[in-house]
């Protein structure tokens, strides 16, 4: 169900995400004071290459990481096997990557 390469990718993506998520959570805690607004969010991110890289990397990692994680769970808890299993993980991966890509584009470039 989980090849050693998938295992490796899951750990690698987790390692990439860890500092990004810490950063993100930090900023959120800092920024949430007094409520969030799109202005505020976009003010911080718009046109920033730094945030583009941060969120870009996160999106790439989470789509891989989540897909592999779901694969394990679907196999073990959902008893899903074979083609359906691959469909599910690829589906999650592509969908997340697409939605994430769009979001990064929106908050940084648009």
């Amino acid at each position, binding site marked *: *169900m989980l090849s050693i390469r998938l*295992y490796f990718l899951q750990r690698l993506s987790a390692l990439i995400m860890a500092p990004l998520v810490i950063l993100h959570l930090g900023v959120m805690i800092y920024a949430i004071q007094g409520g969030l607004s799109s202005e505020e969010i976009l003010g911080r991110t718009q046109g920033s290459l730094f945030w583009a890289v941060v969120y870009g990397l996160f999106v790439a990692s989470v789509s891989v990481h989540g897909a592999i994680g779901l694969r394990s769970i679907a196999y073990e*808890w959902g008893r899903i096997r074979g083609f359906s299993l691959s469909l599910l993980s690829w589906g999650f991966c592509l969908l997340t990557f697409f939605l994430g890509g769009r979001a990064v584009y929106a908050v940084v470039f648009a």
Partner: protein
Amino acid sequence: MGDRSNSIRVKVSRGDDRGRHFDEFDVPALESQTVLDVVTWIQRNADPSLSYRFACRVGMCGSCAMTVNGKPRWTCRTHVSKVLQGDTLTIEPLRNLPVVKDLATDMSEFFDKWTSAESRFVPTKTREDAIEIVQPATKERIEADAAIECINCGVCYASCDAVELNPDYLGPAALNRAWTLQNDVRDGGKNSRLRAVTGEGGCQNCHSQQGCVQHCPNTLNPTRSIAGLKRLATRAVFKREL
């Protein structure tokens, strides 16, 4: 257990995978009494058709493992007072293995997986050669020793969700043994074994639940061994060897 009443209510799982039910027995409580003794008492005095398995009766052969009040245990070395809940004892066959009859399981798949993990020594020398010098203080020897005293009782195998849910998963005992061999400086099968333990049912399927550590009667630590294999595997993937 100061005021234990003088008899124990014992619920015993009967039958096989085609159908199972519980039978209840009242067994006299004794001062020196293991769970295996309780089962034996029932077979000798109450129901001669009860089936179970044991051999050494002192924790060396790993034949007598059963589920006692929900937990996998070696029964020959589990004193009743340690597991009694109120005055009842529920005894079932080991989980995650097919049942032959009553309390005896078919352990074939456990050993088949042991074999497919290539958990056996691959010689680099022959009986004509002198015995290899291996200093006991070396890191490898210490690591191998830490995991070597497994009695293949299957208790860890029964306690693991990954085993239960993933039919390919080799399981803690086989992987634990593989790890001792990866640390055995005399062994010549490391590359091939690393492939075997990173295949379809390999070490990566372990979620570090550590039920195996929790329940291993010999206080071995398969999680630690499996982590060691994962480390070797990660390194090999990095080096593009896997």
